[in-house]
């Protein structure tokens, strides 16, 4: 009987033995295997490449310092979104299902991030966005914290960008330039719609600048002459461009047509050093809001080192200088791993989220507080706006910006091909100016 029982149990013992062995093997692999970081973004765009390269340099530094989480190396895997929502969702699924990544750094545009956001909630993968600034994502994190708490936005959201931009409108466009009216030219995107709504609502109330009209145009528009003619016919003091996808056409046609009204606003094409060559040297007089750290902005000591490494590594390969999201990816990846070290890894998720929320990295320029990587916690109220920005990078909307960096700066391109920050005054190194044909 005994023998028969042993025989009957033999397969069970064998299965258990195999299971234990497999489990031990898995644990051994977990210790020795690399930590996988996924990059999601457009491989072809300057902004996508900025995020990718920022992440690459951060990972190289972490690996060179002996690895992370007990000496494990970091492996970077990438998935191309082609700036398309469907491709973005597929890319997010690929990183999770095929690559089984531990952490994702994103250089996606707003609409693409919005596409993969529900997938992120399903996979529960820690994700850091460096380009998207859509406040709707931040609001979702705040409203459904348990569902979306793995998401962090390493750039000030559009609401914060717009709030500080209104200060620029009041101080520079209104007081300094004496402008009282504007026409908004808005690209037909989620980002464009959000910013337009905000600007139209408070520009007059806060800065005394009346919005005469808003002209919405398709992102594929190639002929801006009728649009500029229509705007000019309304006789505004300036035009306010909101363009985050295809900014080069309105920029270059503005210059080629020598449109007789000044233009400022949000012009993504002007956010990189390559803008000058791309416009054939015709970008003088263009100014734009930029998240930070911006082209033309003086850098903190740490970001300066990163920028030097970037230039040494990539040379003349565009983008020749990182866009703001390149810096945010570099610092963001390092901060995410620092949080993982404190939490013992990216899992359990709650531990990593807690440590990310406790992140507080202050960066200095020649001893002066200059930039900060910290995140708003649930329930934390931003004093100026009186609202929550859960897991958005901590920004400061009130001078002298000693609780965080400002949400944005305004950069100005000059006819000699240089770009400088013109607002806010603490970060300014140049003067706001209008194009030469208007002077």
């Amino acid at each position, binding site marked *: 009987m005994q023998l028969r029982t042993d025989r009957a149990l033999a397969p069970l013992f064998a299965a258990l033995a195999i299971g234990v062995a497999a489990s031990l093997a898995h644990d051994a692999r977990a210790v020795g295997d690399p930590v996988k970081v996924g990059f999601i973004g457009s491989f072809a765009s300057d902004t996508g490449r900025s995020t990718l390269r920022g992440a690459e340099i951060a990972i190289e530094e972490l690996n060179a310092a002996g690895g992370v989480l007990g000496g494990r190396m970091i492996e970077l895997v990438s998935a191309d979104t082609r700036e398309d929502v469907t491709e973005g969702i597929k890319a997010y699924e690929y990183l999770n299902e095929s690559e089984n990544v531990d952490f994702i750094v994103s250089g996606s545009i707003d609409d693409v991030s919005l596409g993969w956001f529900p997938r992120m909630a399903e996979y529960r993968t820690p994700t850091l966005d460096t380009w998207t600034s859509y406040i709707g994502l931040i609001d979702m994190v705040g409203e459904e914290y348990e569902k979306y708490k793995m998401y962090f936005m390493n750039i000030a959201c559009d609401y914060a960008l717009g709030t500080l931009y209104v200060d620029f409108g009041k101080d520079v466009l209104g007081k300094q330039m004496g402008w009282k009216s504007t026409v908004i030219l808005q690209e037909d995107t989620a980002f464009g719609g959000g910013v337009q709504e905000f600007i139209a609502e408070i520009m007059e109330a806060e800065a005394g600048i009346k919005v005469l009209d808003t002209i919405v*145009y398709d992102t594929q528009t*190639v002929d801006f*002459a*009728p649009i500029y*003619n229509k705007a000019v*016919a309304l006789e505004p003091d300036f035009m306010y461009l909101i363009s985050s996808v295809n900014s080069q056409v309105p920029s270059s046609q503005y210059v080629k047509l020598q449109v007789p009204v000044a233009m400022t606003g949000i012009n993504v094409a002007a956010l990189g050093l390559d803008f000058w060559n791309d416009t054939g040297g015709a970008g003088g007089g263009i100014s734009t809001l930029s998240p930070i750290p911006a082209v033309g902005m003086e850098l903190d000591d740490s970001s300066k080192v990163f920028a030097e490494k970037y230039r040494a590594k990539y040379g003349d390969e565009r983008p020749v200088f990182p866009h703001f999201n390149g810096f945010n990816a570099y610092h963001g990846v390092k901060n995410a791993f620092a949080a993982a070290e404190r939490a013992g890894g990216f899992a359990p998720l709650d531990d990593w989220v807690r440590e990310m929320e406790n992140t507080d990295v202050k960066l200095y320029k020649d001893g002066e507080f200059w930039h900060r990587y910290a995140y708003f916690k649930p329930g934390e109220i931003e004093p100026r706006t009186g609202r929550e920005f859960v897991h958005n990078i901590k920004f400061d909307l009130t001078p002298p910006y000693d609780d965080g960096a400002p949400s944005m700066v305004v950069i100005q391109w000059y006819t000699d091909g240089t770009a400088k920050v013109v607002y806010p005054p603490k970060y300014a190194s140049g003067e706001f100016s209008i194009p030469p044909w208007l002077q």
Partner: protein
Amino acid sequence: MTNILIQGLALSGLYALVAVGFTMIFSVGRVLNLAHGVFLMLGGYAYYTAVQVFGISKGAGIAIAVLAGAAFGILTYTVLVRRLEHNPIAVEISTLILAVVMQALIVVVYTSAPKSMWPIVPGVFRHEGVFVSHNILAAMVLSWIVLGGLVVFVRRTRLGRALRAVSMDRKGAVISGIDPHRMSLATWAISGGLAALAGVFFATYTQLTPGMWVAPLIIAVAVVVVGGIGSIVGSLVVAHLIGFMETVTTTLVAAELRGVFTMVLVIVVLVIVPKGLFGREEL
């Protein structure tokens, strides 16, 4: 009103130049060349490389672009279309694939970043509060000259009459001693050259991007469908109709609806007058 008139005329001239080569190829070869936009793109990039990279004069740059377009037209016909022209659907699919492949090649060589080009004719025309670049005015004038010359060419020259003969009756033309393949080759070369010229003005007016072939292709298809596939005169008239319609929509209705009315027009014409407003299939 002045605004609409000037803008409409300027835009229409460019559209006519974009569309006419497309209609010629259909008229002579009875195939739709969905790589037509690529001819424009190549023209733009050839001009950019010659003028803004190597510093060659603008006139020489235009000549190089036109030659590049014509050469690519010949190559496309010889290597691809001639082997498939008995099957129009195969031609359409293969030319569309060619367009996608060429776009990828352009990305590899020039990257996907858009490039802004210097205007061929700098300066701005201003009249009654309306401003139009000299560049687009030059494109408009040049397109009228080229298109006028093209009409004279197909009606008055020996080669032009041979092209018309093939477009009207291929078998009859063969019996008369005309080699239809040579005529097709000439048509692809002319179409490539014209499209490349349009591409130079299109790119200097807008911008240079690897995806710039799509919008002109849509314009070309809309123009020739509404005008009547194969009709040069129909294409010229409808290019102006669409150009003015887009300008009126942008100025008086809503900029984001700019292309919508064009597509509605295409559908209406397809339903009511399937052969197009000028309903011909020969030059």
